[in-house]
């Protein structure tokens, strides 16, 4: 349960988010190959999403029931993406 998160590293997370945003922009302009570009951007975006969810949305301090509520739609989204993307790559 979230109560007072006085010791939450809000400003440290801000520094990381800013750093990753700048790194993403530089990465996008660096002229990497397709795999490197998309892979690198996906990893950096995923880290940013996890940082916001864990520290700003306080998921780090929540119990298992709430985690279950959040992970269930995430699972449905993964199933949906896995269902649709093969069709897209078929026409690639």
């Amino acid at each position, binding site marked *: 349960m979230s109560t007072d998160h006085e010791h939450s590293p809000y400003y440290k997370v801000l520094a990381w988010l800013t750093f990753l945003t700048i790194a993403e922009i530089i990465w996008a302009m660096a002229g990497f190959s397709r795999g490197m570009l998309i892979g690198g951007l996906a990893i950096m975006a995923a880290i940013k999403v996890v940082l916001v969810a864990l520290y700003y949305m306080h998921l780090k301090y929540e119990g298992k029931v*709430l985690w279950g*509520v959040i992970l269930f739609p995430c699972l449905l989204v993964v199933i*949906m993406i896995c269902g649709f993307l093969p069709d897209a790559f078929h026409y690639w």
Partner: protein
Amino acid sequence: METSAPAIEKPGPLNFTWGKMAMWLFLGSDMMGFMGLITLYMVLRISAGDWQLPGDPCFGIPLTGFMTFILIMSSVTMVTALSRIQKGNVKGLLFWLGLTILGGATFLSLQVYEWSHLIHLGLSAKKSNYAATFFMLTGFHGLHVTIGVIYLSCVWIRAKQGAYSMASHSTVELVGLFWHFVDLVWIVLFTILYLIPDSVQ
């Protein structure tokens, strides 16, 4: 205007308030909506021969990078506002919540500028999927930002009326969850819409 004394909120048997559970359920369903649109975008883009048609303008990274920074900053001001009311500091809550509203309004203003600039350059949802998906995704997100700014403003007014205290501030936490979700979605949209250029298809 009449204000009622803040009631002390007790967590439910599973150690969280039902309001928080409801907000997370809403965010889960909203995330599925967004991911449906993002999946549609990915399928169209991957399977398209020419994604960006001749005459379609490119999206600007410097402006949207700045917009991303503003949204990230507004997330920090939001958590700071929550931290202030958790200590019973209503003035601090009003100040940081006000900054969050300002950040959201600035983001919206820049999005209006970006849209009008792109439309002026000839970007039209009727012409290509490139334009249609851009307007659909950024428009749906912009709608969320607009609702977030209105929601934050309502909470600010209630805070001004003395509705929140150290013992009772779950509404501030709930609006914060919504606002961080809007930030989180933008992180994904910024990456897939702006940072992956057409040439890497």
